């Protein structure tokens, strides 16, 4: 447990010292949402209707953006090799990195979501539902993304491949996430299903990603 927390702490510290990385992500998230009113016109009713789905698309793309850096730096400087015989299993290492990835991508996106809600003329209730669905759904996106990043880390130019691999896995998350965010009533089923996807994927993906790392280094 100590080792896992050390990995989370190190990744967050590195990201904060790296400076612009986390900020880039938030900026991308806000920009992706902010250009919508310009593209489809300032129709408040239409915007309000589209807003939950748009926030989810923006969050989804922003989380894919951070995927490449998940294992790349550790692979390049030899840290990943050393993790192979750490005192904690590789699955725990991957779990720690997954948690750090969620904290560094999903949390900033959540924090920036009120701004997007404002730009897309969402009301308070709509934003609350969207934020809740993001909170429940983004762990699954982080988990699937971790597997994609682990599979592609041994490929030199795998930067674009990970999002392509992750996309089909993430579609259900997007469907239920946007569903839970949009439905004023009767969204409970979608919300519960979203939480279930997140729980299952967070439990299984570290094992899949660790396996991919082991096979990839041979």
């Amino acid at each position, binding site marked *: 447990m100590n080792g896992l927390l*050390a*990995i989370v702490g*190190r990744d967050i510290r*590195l990201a904060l*010292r790296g400076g612009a990385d986390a900020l880039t992500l938030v900026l991308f998230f806000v920009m992706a949402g902010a250009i919508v009113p310009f593209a489809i016109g300032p129709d408040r009713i239409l915007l309000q209707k589209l807003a939950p789905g748009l926030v989810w698309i923006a969050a989804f793309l922003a989380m894919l953006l951070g995927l490449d850096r998940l294992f790349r730096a550790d692979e390049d400087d*030899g*840290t990943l090799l*050393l993790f192979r*015989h750490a005192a904690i299993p590789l699955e725990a290492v991957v779990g720690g990195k997954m948690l750090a990835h969620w904290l560094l991508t999903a949390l900033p996106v959540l924090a920036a979501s009120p701004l997007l809600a404002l730009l897309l003329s969402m009301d308070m209730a709509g934003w609350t539902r969207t934020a809740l669905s993001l909170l429940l759904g983004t762990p699954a996106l982080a988990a699937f993304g971790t597997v994609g990043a682990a599979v592609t880390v041994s490929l030199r130019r795998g930067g674009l491949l990970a999002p392509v691999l992750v996309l089909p896995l993430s579609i259900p998350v997007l469907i239920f996430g946007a569903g839970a965010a949009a439905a004023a009533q009767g969204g409970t089923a979608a919300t519960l299903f979203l939480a279930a996807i997140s729980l299952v994927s967070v439990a299984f993906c570290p094992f899949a990603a660790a396996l991919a790392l082991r096979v990839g280094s041979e």
Partner: protein
Amino acid sequence: MTLASADTGTLGMAAMSPGTPLLTVRDLALSRGGRRLFSGLGFVLAPGTLLLLRGPNGAGKSSLLLTLAGILRPDAGALDWGGEPPALHLLAHAAGAKARLTLEENLAFWRKVNGPTGLTPAEALRIVGLGGLDRLDAGYLSAGQTRRLALARLLVTDRKLWLLDEPTAALDAEGDAIAAALIAARLGSGGAVIAATHHDLPGATATLTLGDSQ
């Protein structure tokens, strides 16, 4: 196909040293990228042994170390650890140091991940000759200093077996002496070291030559 040729005389000596062997390798064969690096490789590693891996570039020294570390799977043969494989330290080409973390933070991280069974980061840095640089970002280190930092990582967690890939690469004369002293201390306390190297390391008890040209 290149065959591994072991100097049986020195290896026999290693096998005769007291204590149960830490590792017995039998009939090991390994390929990388479809090319057979070695086959029929066998040796015994007893506690207190410094085994040198020699051979030309591309003979498979680093790959053998990775195989022993369990990262590469051999084509054939067996590694007999006499039970569970022990916790081991691997010193690879890349130091595994984060440029944006200070030396102290780098070592403290590995100490937390691998268990605080060794020296404190400050002590380890002092021993490898980086004392007083605790607060410096690792990115500012020279190649030789980065190598010393990698050696310091071996000290913050106590592990019996060290696999060293070119431990003295980029080190100056003083660094060479430090590395030799660390290895001697490891051997003295019942550990064992396998080092792939092109230079002679003092205190070598056995040599294994890989590849055609000896």
